[in-house]
């Protein structure tokens, strides 16, 4: 839309087609321009045009004075269950997972996404503009397929379905696969083998364990076009995941990774990203004996790509996602992770891991203009956005919670 910008510079634009200029911003672009003080962020036609220090606002642009406040890209959660459960403990409102039935790898959360979920505006009002929504643990090692969502008002929309395949290993799945975690790895390897033979036209239909829909769902994993996200915490399972990536030539991403720090060098060499919970400093299970606060710092130092998920006893997997991942990022900083790497773990890094649209999670020129102005340090969970732009348009920060707040606010 450069011509439009040029036109606007030449003559005042009408409000409908005006560019937006956020001036006096303390911008974290998460791109080439890095951190820019007193930045002018120019947005036009739904995209970021530029972020420059002391830059002029285009004539006719809608000007927003950030007053020195922090401006970041919209946040991205690498693994959430937004829009899949409304009241997670009321089973009839919960579509996160299948615990029985024929679908494994083919289970697809896209079909369950509820764009009218009241959880979505809450997440957006906390700065979240994109997320990967993933299936919960299923009846076997494969949970199913995840989807990318974008929190376009009023709720959100699926941007790309079947964006990743999820699997669970370790103690969590052992009882579902006969009693041993070894069985989960055997089943995963077998399924990938069957999927490969199916793709090559060599699968003996009488000698397969997996259904055709499940094997078809694994084709993009085999082809390397989507990652296989493996939930694993114990070092032994992380080693299995590294071996699997090598043997099967699939793109593996680790979810959890409580003991990943102890294999940081190996994970870095295998180019396996880790989505971890910076709040997980105690062993919730025997798989997490080595859990520690500086997991993120140690992994990043070794060169492992990291992104964050904050579970909060499971509550934050769906509720308050935008706030929770900032809290986790802040805790990672408090325990040794450089600030911009923590911010990247909830913006540009998950976008890169999962192949969100070019520029997602950054303020690079041409990126979708998902932009947040903060009332404080975004990595303090007590901070909140003063404005959230999605596709260059300011999103209302009204949620069901703010409506309740306004109804019951004490009279002053």
């Amino acid at each position: 839309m450069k011509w439009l910008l040029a036109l606007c510079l030449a003559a005042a634009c009408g409000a409908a087609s005006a560019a937006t200029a956020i001036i006096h911003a303390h911008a974290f672009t998460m791109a080439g321009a890095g951190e820019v003080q007193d930045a002018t962020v120019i947005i036009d036609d739904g995209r970021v045009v530029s972020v420059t220090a002391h830059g002029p606002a285009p004539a006719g642009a809608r000007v927003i004075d950030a007053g020195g406040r922090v401006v970041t890209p919209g946040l991205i959660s690498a693994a959430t269950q937004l829009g899949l459960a409304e009241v997670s403990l009321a089973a009839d409102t919960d579509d996160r997972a299948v615990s029985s039935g024929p679908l494994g790898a083919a289970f697809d959360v896209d079909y369950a996404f509820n764009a009218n979920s009241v959880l979505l505006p809450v997440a957006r009002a906390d700065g979240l503009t994109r997320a990967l929504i993933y299936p919960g643990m299923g009846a076997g090692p494969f949970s199913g397929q995840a989807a990318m969502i974008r929190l376009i008002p009023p709720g959100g929309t699926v941007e790309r379905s079947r964006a990743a395949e999820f699997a669970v290993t370790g103690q969590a799945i052992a009882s579902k696969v006969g009693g041993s975690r070894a069985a989960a790895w055997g089943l995963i390897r077998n399924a990938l083998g069957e999927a490969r033979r199916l793709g090559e036209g060599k699968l003996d239909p009488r000698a397969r364990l997996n259904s055709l829909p499940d094997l078809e769902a694994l084709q993009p994993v085999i082809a390397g076009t989507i990652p296989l996200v493996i939930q694993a915490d114990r070092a032994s399972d992380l080693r299995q995941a590294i071996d699997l990536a090598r043997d099967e030539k699939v793109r593996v991403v680790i979810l959890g990774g409580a003991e990943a720090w102890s294999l940081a060098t190996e994970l870095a060499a295998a180019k396996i990203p880790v989505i971890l919970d910076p709040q997980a400093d105690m062993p919730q299970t025997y798989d997490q004996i080595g859990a520690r606060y500086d997991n993120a710092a140690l992994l990043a130092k070794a060169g492992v790509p990291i992104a964050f998920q904050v579970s909060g006893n499971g509550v934050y997997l769906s509720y308050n996602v935008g706030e929770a991942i900032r809290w986790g990022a802040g805790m990672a900083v408090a325990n040794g992770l450089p600030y911009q790497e923590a911010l990247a773990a909830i913006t540009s890094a998950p976008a890169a891991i999962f192949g969100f649209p070019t520029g997602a999670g950054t303020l690079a020129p041409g990126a979708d203009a998902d932009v947040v102005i903060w009332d404080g340090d975004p990595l303090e969970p007590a901070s909140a956005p003063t404005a959230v732009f999605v596709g260059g348009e300011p999103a209302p920060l009204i949620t069901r919670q703010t409506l309740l707040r306004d109804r019951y606010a004490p009279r002053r």
Partner: protein
Amino acid sequence: MPRARRLGRPALLAAMAALVAGPALAAAANGRVAPYLADLFPSTYTPPAAPETLIVHAIVLDGAGHRLDDGQVLMGSGKIIAIGHDLKAPGARLIDARGRWVTPGIIDIHSHDGTYHLPQTAIDAEASDVAELSDPNTAGVWIESGIDAEDLAFAHALASGVTTLQVLPGSTPVFGGRTVVLHPVPALTVQAMKMPGAPQGEKMACGENPKTYDVEKGRGPTSAAGEVTFIRDAFAKARTYKAKWDRYLAGETADAPEDDPRLDTLAAMLEGKIAAHIHCYRASEMAIWLDLARDIGFRIAAFHHAVEGYKIAPLLVSRGVCAVVWSDWWGFKVEAVDGIRENAAFIDAAGGCVMMHSDGPFLGQWLNVEAGKAAAAGRRAGLALPPEHVIAWLTSNPAKAMGLADRIGALAPGLDADLVVWSGDPFSVYTHADLVFIDGAVRFDRSQPPPAPDFQLGRAPTP
């Protein structure tokens, strides 16, 4: 641990009653003692000797609403001696807290540490120690009798600035059992963690948890209204039981009634010695239970979780009942769908006694950040909520709800010297507890991390 001398039953009860209840509850004139007032597991907690200590150049939040910049705190013999400026304490150990903050120790009024064992295993899935589930009325349970003193969570709580915590039974039964107040200090026995003389509470639960569990088990109340009737029935029996004991204690009858642990607890509630801590989410249910307690004659210390507390804040205030809340948990169950982040702030604004809680070992490490989040939401809604006020949500308010305001929760002369030296703003995500004092003794020092707990010995890899 010194072995207890073997005592005959009356003498033993007399000794225990004195320990738990203090001089006001001495045995009846004839030497008889009510079993419902006995302390079965007396505290052996003793703070280590500590030198007189003067903290200087700190930003002090005293827990009672005051802030002192470049302030000083003097403690000795386990107590706060003074706070102020230009305190004189020759010979005292000096701690320079320039750039750092000092607050009373955090009190976590709702913890399951020691019963929610870390790491969780299949054993916990089969038979959790968080709650006794054999009956919807397990009022006779003393949760302290099932606590693992070596649970990993205690050390994490201490390292996060928690100096006192109340462990409650879980919220599955209507009557869950008696609570216990502990200091999260390294110990091999619960008795060695138990705060001497701290009142017990009784955990009760309203709403979804008890009714759905009892539907599943085919016994007990299966509806919100049924829970209320169940409680009335239980206290009707307890009233008769207590009357029998009181007649015996007064010497009107010769033979002691049969002792019943469940009825003991309810009798102690009717006696006013044990207050209820009630898991409850919804405004309408809290309002019913307030009337229920008034009708029956037991005291409610606090509603816990209370996600709709903000809707009935003036009612809570008028009944003198505190609210124990999260900063932002909501939505995960039907009775929690109306949770808002201003809950704490709005209850506070009505003049209520509000506080944060953990309910789990992880959140128990970040209660300071929880309060910071809840206060920030309140400020965005237009309330003032300066740090010197908000700190009460972690200190003096829980002390009040636990009946301990005369001992802990504030930095005031004569109170226990439980305090934290924070590396910075205590409500910031970046801040660490540098030093944690309990009864005037340093129990955690971030510069000298404690030895690994027994569980971790020989297990955890190192980088």
